[in-house]
Each structure stands twice: as C-alpha cells, then as structure tokens.
C-alpha cells in the first residue's frame, strides 16, 4: 500500500513538473510563427545554393530546411535583423537581395548615378551649344500669336510633317 502511494506521488510530481516546464517554455516562445511570418523574412533572402532565387519561392529541399530554420528562430524570439545576420554570417553576403553598403560594394550604388549625371551634363551642354545660333532665328521665326491661329497653325504643321515624311 505504502509503495503504491509513493508511486502515485512520484508520478504526480513528474507530471506537474513537466506541465510547468512545458508551460513556461511555451509562454517564452510567444505565438507560433505563421508561414506568412516566415515568408516575410525569406522573401528578403536569397537561396544560398541556387542562382537568383528568393528563399520564399525556392523549391529545393535545402531551402525548405532553411525556411524551417527561420520558423524555429522566430519561435525562439529572434528578430528579423538577427535572422538575416545569421544567414549572412553563415552563407556570405550573397544571401541578401542587395550587396551590403560596404567597401567595394559601394561601386554598385555609385557608378550608375555618376554615369547618368555625366550623360545629363553632356546632353545639356550639347543642347546649349546647338541652341545658340538659333536664338536669333527663334525671335524672328513665325510666332503663333492668337488662339484663333492655333488650329490653322496646327494644320499647317501637320500637313508640313506629312509632306516631308517620305
């Protein structure tokens, strides 16, 4: 009889402690992350082994495991930044959808605007150079003074363009 009581006591203690432990762990986790939560982060990461495939739509087994890893990390309370950093640390900068703004990578951000600006300057100067000799001409040129002329002038221009086309 005594033995049986002891046994029940031990079972009770074990059960209660398990329940307490489980509850405490679950409450630390917060709500379970949904697939959408995982995708929100996976979308910003690129598959470390395939070419140019975002992690949220990658079909490989490896990517499925990485998404599971993100889910786990979210469940453990990691922030988005921490998760991204984890992937960068483990698989290199190529997992990010853009090169990090460091060192040589600045070139990817700076070269296009510099070239486009240079193009704009060249274009502007060329336009100004072409424009100069015509300044007098424009003033002397046929001005369309009144609203009534507009339609006629338009027809004339249209006809002229049609005529000179071929």
């Amino acid at each position, binding site marked *: 009889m005594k033995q049986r009581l002891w046994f029940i006591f031990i079972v009770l203690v074990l059960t209660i402690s398990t329940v307490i432990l489980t509850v405490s762990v679950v409450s630390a986790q917060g709500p379970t992350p949904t697939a959408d939560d995982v995708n929100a982060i996976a979308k910003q990461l690129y598959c470390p082994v395939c*070419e*140019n495939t975002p992690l949220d739509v990658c*079909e490989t087994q490896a*990517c499925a495991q990485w998404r599971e890893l993100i889910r786990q990390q979210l469940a453990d309370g990691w922030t988005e930044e921490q998760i991204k950093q984890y992937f960068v640390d483990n698989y290199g900068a190529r997992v990010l959808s853009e090169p990090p703004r460091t060192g040589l990578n600045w070139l990817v951000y700076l070269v296009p605007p510099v070239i486009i600006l240079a193009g704009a300057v060249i274009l502007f100067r060329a336009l100004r150079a*072409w424009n*100069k000799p015509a300044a007098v001409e424009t003033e002397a040129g046929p001005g369309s003074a009144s609203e009534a002329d507009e339609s006629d002038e338009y*027809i004339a221009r249209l006809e002229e363009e049609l005529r000179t086309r071929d």
Partner: protein
Amino acid sequence: MLADFGYGVLVITFLISLYSIVIAIYGEFKKSAVMVESARRAMLLTWPLLTLSALTLVYLLVNNHYELEYVWAVTNRSMPLYLKITALWGGQAGSLLFWSWLLAAFTSAVTLRKWDRDREFLPWVIVVSSVTLAFFLAMIVFFENPFAKILGPVPVDGRGLNPLLRHPGMIIHPPMLYLGFVSFVIPYAFAMAALITGRTDDRWIRITRRWTLWAWMFLSLGLVLGARWAYDVLGWGGYWGWDPVEIAALMPWLVGTPFLHTVMIEEKRGMLKQLNMFLIILTYDLVIFGTFLTRSGVLSSVHAFAESAIGPMFFGFIGLTLITSVALVIYRWGDLKSENSLHSLLSREALFLLAALLFLGILVISFWGTIFPLISELFTGQKVTVGPPFYERATTPLWGGLMLLMGIAPLSAWGHSTIKTLGRAIWKPSIVALIVPIAAYAGGIRQTVALIGFTLVALVITVTLYEFWRGARARSRKSDENFVTALLRLAGRNRRRYGGYIIHISMVLMAIGILGIEIFQTETQKNIAVGDEINLAGYTIHYDSLAQFRNQDGRYVTRAVMSISKNGRDMGELYPRFDIYPDGQPMTIPGVRSTLVDDLYIVLVNWEQVGPQSTPFKIYHNPLVKWVWIGTYLFVFGVLVAAWPEKEREYASARSRRKKAAYGTSGAD
C-alpha cells in the same frame, strides 16, 4: 552517319560565309560587279544549307538518337513531339544553330531586295552579315557542336529538357526573342555600310526603318511572352524578377527603343547622326551579348565563365566589333556633323534626346547590376546578389520620367517649341488627367508611387487621344470629311506617327498592370485541410478536394480543387497543381482567375508534405496585372499600323487619280 552529314553541312556553310566575306571585299576593291554578285549568291546559299543542317538535328531529336550528346541532354523518350522539335533551341549548341539559321534567313531576305539605288551598300552589307554569321558558325563548328557524339556506350534514354522549359511557351518565346535579336543585325549592317562607303546621309536609316521596327516588335514580344511564361509556370506570383537572363534580353530593347525615336530626328532634321550610329552599334553588341548570356549561365560565377569555351570568344568578338565600329564612326566624324541646329530646349528633338538619356540610364543600371557580382567576386572573392530591390529603386524614377516625356513630347513641335506653345497644348489634357489621381485618392489609395504613376498613365492616354482628336478635327474641318473618316484617313496617311501613338498607349496600359502588381500585390501562405478556407483580399478560397494520380506520360500529378467566392457570390473553381516528372523534376502550375480588376493566383506548394489533412497553399492577389497582356495586344496592333508596307498609298493615289479622271473633281485625298 546522319550526324556527320549535319556537321559536314555546317562546315561547308561556314566556309561559304568566309568565301562571301573575302570575295565581297575583293570585288569591291577590284570594282568587279561579278565578284560582288558571286558573294551575294554565296550568301543566298547559306540559308538552304543551314535549313538542311537544322532539319537534320530536328530529325535526330525526334527519333531519340541519344548517341548525340545534345539530343541526350535536351530530350527523353517521354517528351511529346512538339517539345522534341523545340528542343532545337533548348540548349546552347542548338540555340546557336537556330540563331544562325534565322540570321541566314534575314540576310538572304535583305540581299533579295532591289539594290538599284544603293549598289554601293551591297558588298558591305554582305560583309557585315557574313562576318556575324561566320562567327556564330565558327562557335558551332569548333566549340559547341550539336552533332557531337557521346563517348562510350549509347544511353537508353535522354536526360530530358529542363522541366521549366517543357511548356507550350517554349514554341513561341525563344523564337520571338531570337527573331528580335537577329533582325537588329540588318540595320547594323547597313549602318556600317554607310560608314565604310562614306554615304552618310539618312539613306541607311530609310532602308532599314521597317526592319528596325519589326526587329523591335519581335524583341518586345519576346520579352512579354517570356514574362507571361514565367507568370504561368514558375509559380512565384510574378512575371519579371530582374534575373540576369531577363536583363540580357531587355538591354538591346533599352537601346533599340530610343534608336527608333532618334532616327526620326535624323530623317527630319539631319541631326544626331553620330548618336544614331552609336545606338545601333550598341544594340548590335548587346544582341550578341544577350544571345550569349541567355543560354550560357556564365553569370553564375567567374569560374563558369572561365570554363566556358565560347565565353572568351564571345567577348573577343564583341570587343572587336565594338572597337571597329566606333573607329569607323570617329573616322567619319566630320561627315556625320549635324546639318541643322536646335531651336529650343522644348522642341521634340530635345525631348527625344532626354528620353534617350533616360533609356540609356536604365541600360547603365541594368548592365552594371548584372555584371557587378562578377566584379565583386573577381576582386574580393565575395559573392553578392543584385536583386529586384536594387533595380526597382534605381529605375523607377527613370521609367516615370519616360512616361512624363510620352505625355509631353507628342505635343511639342519639331524645331521649335516654347513654354507658351507647349503649355497651351498641354493644359487641357493635364486637367483631364488629374481626375484620375484625385479619384484614386478618394478611393483610398495613398501610395505616392501609385498616385504619380496613375497620373502619368492618364496624362499619356489623354494627350495621345487629344492628338488623334486634334488631327482628325483639323482634317475634317479642312476637307469636309466626317470625323471618323478624317481620323482613319489621317492615321492611314501617317501610319508611323499614329502607329507610334497607339504603341504609346499600349505601353502605359502595360504600366497600369505593372503598377498594380508591384505596389498592390498581397499574398498569404497556409496549410489547410480539405474543407477549410483561406481568405485574401476579399476572396474566400474553399479547399474542396485533392487528387494524386500518375499521368499517361509518367508525370505524377497532384491537383487540388478550390472553389472561389467573394461576398458570398460563387466565382467558379481553380485547379492549382504540380507535376513531378519521371526524373524527379517538379513543375508548378498555378490556378489563376484573371479579370480586368485583379488576378487570384493559387499555388499548390510542392516543397512541403502534401496530403488531404494538411495541404500548403500560397495565394497571391495581383491587382490589374491583366493590363500587361491587354497592352501587348494593342502594342502589336500599333506596330502593324506603323510598319505595314505602304502598298495602299500607291493604290489610294491610283484610285484617287481614277476618281479625278472620272468625276473631274479634286478628290478627297
């Protein structure tokens, strides 16, 4: 045996193209018309010969000749006939052969035209086309032989085409893109002929105007069809991912499009000859670059490039043609000086130039973003990804600027425009256009990019329609035609102009779709059991049933039935599915319900456990995306209007002469 025949024909064609180069140059210097004629006929031989070679390869593909490495790599016994045929362009070697075959067809067509007025161009057009053809044939003959045999025992079955390519889109998308690529060689050949002969008037542009327009249409269609294919098959809810291969096809378009516009300035005003030369040279070399990139995969890493036998050859060829062409432009620099000057910064010429700057800006971003990963790996050993966020952020303002120019430029005059004349033309359409963003704001749209984008779309549409209306009204007043007749005659007489306007409208219709999906796309992913529901964007998606079965051709199909409803109204069923091919490769086919307002796009996710108790679905809501495809139809119509051969003009004038003779009137035309 048959393979040796196919290869032998290739070698002979290669030698013939070399012959036509040498003999054309020799004939030109010896002033021997007979020799030039011989070169021309040699060139005409290349197309029938390449047809023979390509048909041989198709025969081998269809009849499972797995002793050939190429046949083994791109087909297997389970593939349907149409895919075995299209496997001709399913891999690198076959693509090169197909490319050469198309090029031979185009160059043959161009040498069959009447040359009376342009005799001096002929030898050089032959030389440039043949050099291009000979280069591609050399790549096939020496490096990428589709007729090469497998060493060792003959495999029983082939590896098969990449599943993503096993789609009816395979029939049409690559040929369209290649047609676009190849046909740009023709205007380039004429441009070079003009430079070499020193005939630097706009003759070369007038000859090639239609070629260029068709080339541009094929290229544009190739791009859109590729986007559609991605949307239908890839199952990532989108149509464009700024992937290097996509960008490679986009780049020639980014130069070809401003070229189409700036040649008009040269035709009308004798200006910008140097720029036009640079643009066509750039287009040509980007076409070669694009052809190379789309099939080689060298961009994946520096090592892939180094290992690829043809990579260095391609870069050598691009470098050589670029240097030679630019050297020719510099040599003729003085002859290419403008005959005219610009009168206003708001003239149509100036606005076209601004548009060219924006297009080239997008090109710079695309090119740099595509090659930067290689540069990074080369110098730091670190691999990086340049993905959609980069391109989207960098190019969006430039696309917006182009839309603004599409709204302004049609109203500006050639030669001279002032703020006053332009302002007077634009204020009415602008006010009409402003209704759209106000309505959108009232309707709850708060995204700045969307509001600006829709304003620009509205501006372009109203300005363009206003131009049609103004022209037709002016004509109907002047010639007593009713408005519709006046409109049709006006457009009919000036097809290039009004075809171009139709294309402008088609472009902004596509922009509506792009704005819709880029800014307003929503998505959700969830595991549900049969009988459960998912809600997204007002839709209720009910999971009815799941079926898994093996298809006749060996595919293992998993297919779900979903019934869609919105606000309690039944909207039919969708059947997302995925197929696993016998070789284990998956293919995802989303269920899509498409309307003018939005697309509902359901993907049965194949990378997780699938069963009736728990099935993962990914659902996208893509507003307005259908307008991309609607715009495409209008686009084709616009190009047809602009590029259709003007037979009717002679016909119309003959008719009006008859009419005049019969009635003694002055006629309406």
